[in-house]
């Protein structure tokens, strides 16, 4: 590359950084590719990329997936529009920052005993509810206990099943005692169910009032339709640049995109990928395409023929051309999977595990070794798993023919798919939401005795490492364990992972955000309302 071309590239990168079009990570990569040293690139990043946010305006967000039956009960939060709303008006003990790290929210700092069994969270003195009352340790204890105990109806009950006790220490801090060590407990506290609400006098939770201690206060609430909020001036964190926020439920993808195009809303969630290239042409619209920790999995049951043979499982993994699937099914809005359920958007991601490529010849050889040439298998899939799920299976079936594998795609009804097919049939397609850490993901769906061990995979070493890593507080040691677990899952496990779908959402050009976007939920970890701003 010539010198002039390099300079042009660097200028363009700096522009892109200023407008928030590239993340810090990709900025550094590109700058270094263009011949800058690492320190020069860092310097350029800090001078160019810091556009100061300005305050003011009403942020109108169009969110998908809302239902008239939504409620304020944190135990039964389920729809996506509610997840957007809660992060706008309620707070958590901890939060996931835009750069993917764990940051303070209502808890200012936390520490664990060496075995990671006893965790203490110090609370922020400045945190107040919208009603004016201070957030006390008692409120936090009640908020967590809402998801525990016999009579709890919470969907997050399983996450806290290991908690033995939660106590108010009397000095504006709480202590959580666990049955066995868990180094990820502070990450777990970012789960959207664990919103902090005021406590009643009897220790139960007062979630009904719609009070919260988040950046905005609810003014009008019509579930499944619209929510309007104003800034909570006493919020304990930085941000909340908009004066007001209106979240409108727009379930229909066409209505959502039209509303954005006509300027009826300022930002929308969940774009229809098929029309992405058309929307990109609109000069007033910016599209955010963020790699996420959500995943598409195709679990093969390791205790059922023919998948009880590891060579057959690996042949199935080799017979998929992931590049083609990402291009044709997701329109290049996905990160390639590598058959272990740990996305690059999660902490501890091992970047040195070789990518599994499409290799029909190798697949054929493995099948011959297993004595299963000309294998015929059936996969079940429903349209609702994700947009393009059936098409993906048909494309994969074509690709697998080159390895002499005959896949029958059986399209089954969407209604009841997760109760009748998933965990019951030997091979199907599943969509998983983003989980904050590899431990949460592996414990949920790969641990030998997990209720959702969808591939029925039993690997002694993997389970041993899982337990060790869970209570390991040394990050380097932990990362090494997750690397080994990744290798085990990739080469022995029963789960084929085609890709990790990106979060694809859009905003009007006058809406600005920082250089990075959190990968925990759409809209910057569902915190667009408190992190984004209007161009001054």
């Amino acid at each position, binding site marked *: 590359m010539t010198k002039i071309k390099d300079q042009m590239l660097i200028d363009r990168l700096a522009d892109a950084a200023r407008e928030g079009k590239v993340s810090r990570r990709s900025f550094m990569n590109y700058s270094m590719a263009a011949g800058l040293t690492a320190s020069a690139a860092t310097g350029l990043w800090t001078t160019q990329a810091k556009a100061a946010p300005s305050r003011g305006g009403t942020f109108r967000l169009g969110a998908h997936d809302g*239902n*008239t*039956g*939504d*409620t304020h009960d944190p*135990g*039964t939060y*389920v729809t996506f529009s509610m997840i957007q709303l809660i992060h706008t008006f309620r707070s958590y003990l901890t939060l996931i920052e835009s750069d993917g790290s764990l940051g303070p929210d209502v808890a200012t700092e936390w520490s664990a005993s060496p075995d990671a069994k006893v965790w203490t969270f110090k609370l922020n003195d400045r945190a107040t509810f919208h009603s004016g009352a201070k957030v006390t340790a008692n409120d936090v204890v009640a908020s967590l206990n809402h998801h525990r105990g*016999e*009579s*709890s*109806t*919470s*969907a*997050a*009950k*399983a996450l806290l099943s290991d908690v033995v006790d939660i106590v108010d220490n009397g000095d504006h801090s709480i202590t959580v005692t666990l049955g066995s060590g868990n180094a990820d407990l502070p990450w777990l506290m970012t789960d959207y169910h664990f919103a902090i609400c005021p406590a009643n006098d009897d220790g139960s939770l007062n979630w009904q009032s719609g009070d919260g201690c988040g950046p905005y206060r609810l003014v*009008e609430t*019509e*579930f*499944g*339709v*619209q929510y*309007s909020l104003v800034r909570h001036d006493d919020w304990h964190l930085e941000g909340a640049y908009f004066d007001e926020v209106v979240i*409108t*439920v*727009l*379930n*229909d993808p*066409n*209505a959502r995109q*039209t*509303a954005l*195009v*006509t300027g*009826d*809303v300022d930002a929308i969630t969940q774009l229809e990928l098929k029309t992405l290239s058309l929307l990109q042409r609109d000069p007033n619209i910016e599209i955010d395409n963020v790699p996420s920790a959500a995943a598409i999995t195709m679990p093969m049951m390791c205790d059922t023929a023919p998948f009880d043979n590891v060579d057959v499982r690996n042949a199935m993994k080799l017979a998929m051309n992931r590049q083609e699937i990402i291009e044709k099914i997701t329109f290049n809005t996905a990160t390639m999977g590598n058959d272990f359920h740990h996305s690059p958007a999660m902490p501890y991601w091992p970047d040195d595990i070789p990518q599994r490529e499409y290799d029909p010849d190798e697949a054929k050889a493995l099948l011959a070794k297993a004595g299963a040439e000309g294998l015929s298998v059936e996969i079940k899939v429903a349209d609702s798993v994700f947009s393009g799920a059936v098409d993906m299976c048909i494309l994969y079936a074509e690709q697998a023919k080159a390895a002499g594998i005959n896949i029958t795609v059986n399209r089954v009804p969407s*209604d*009841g798919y*997760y*109760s009748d097919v998933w965990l019951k049939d030997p091979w199907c397609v599943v969509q998983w939401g983003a989980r904050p850490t590899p431990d949460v993901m592996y414990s949920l769906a790969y641990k030998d005795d997990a*209720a959702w061990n969808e591939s029925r995979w039993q690997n002694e070493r993997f389970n041993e490492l899982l337990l060790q890593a869970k209570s390991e507080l040394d990050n380097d040691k932990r990362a090494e364990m997750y690397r080994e677990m990744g290798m085990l899952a990739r080469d022995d496990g029963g789960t084929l992972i085609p890709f990790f779908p990106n979060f694809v959402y859009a905003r009007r050009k006058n809406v600005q955000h920082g250089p990075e976007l959190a990968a925990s939920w759409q809209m910057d970890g569902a915190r667009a309302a408190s992190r984004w701003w209007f161009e001054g």
Partner: protein
Amino acid sequence: MGDILGLVGKRLGIGLFILLVISVIIFFMVELLPGDIAQAVLGQGATEENLAALRKEMGLDKPAIIRYLEWLGGAVTLDFGNSIVTGERVTTLIGQRFMNTLFLAAYAAVIAVPLAIVLGVLVALLRYTVFDRVANVATLTSISSPEFFLGYILILYFSVNWGMFPAIASLSQDMTLPELLHRTFLPALTLVLVVTAHMMRMTRAAIINLLASPYIEMARLKGTPPWKVIVKHALPNAWAPIINVVALNLAYLITGVVLVEVVFVYPGIGQALVDSVSKRDFPVVQACCLIFAATFILLNLAADVGAILTNPRLRHPK
């Protein structure tokens, strides 16, 4: 007049019985749906434990027939109970939604009914001319297209290309009437396009039918101008079938708008019904369906009464 009151009373009695039958059917259809309300509420996060706790809290541990009878006991005293999912009164939950639906229906009806009848008279007057053909083709095209398609076309031109009207019809409480009419114009127009053809064609057919009658011939022989023949002589005798069609279309404006609501994100009762079915929230489903059923029953009754009043012969059936 007494016989009409008797008829109305009798029909209302039958109507109540029909509502009862419908409520039984709806209850058991909701029961037949796979999965129950607790599973629908908890979604993928459901475990044996929290399902059991939630079922108990919602009172689902009682047998279905008992739950139905409890609901019915309330319903006869006009107490439609609370939503199982949110615990709110059903009346507060869907009251505002129903008013929104009524408003949109009224808005569309105020445009569509006069438009259809005037057009109907005009095409009858100018039958077999170019005007007649164009009006017929245009209205038949609009009735033959699905509502969501019409809605998208209107959005494309009126809001995306020309920017005249907003693409979504979300409401807020502090809106003035002109703002409201402006914001809801496109969904209303979609409904107008859908219902106009039926009413216009019926008006035209009813009038043309009468044009062969001897008394019309007489009027024409007297030298009455053609428009007067139609408006003064033919139309009064054509009201009965027209009123019937108008009533059916008004019922459609209330019960058939769910697609229009989705396309324009209008917070009406159709969306509330779809949401509550997906959550298996029986009291809300029941209330919505009964509103729809009652709408049909009352509008049909109104159509019959209207037809009788405009045609004295019907009052004395042989």
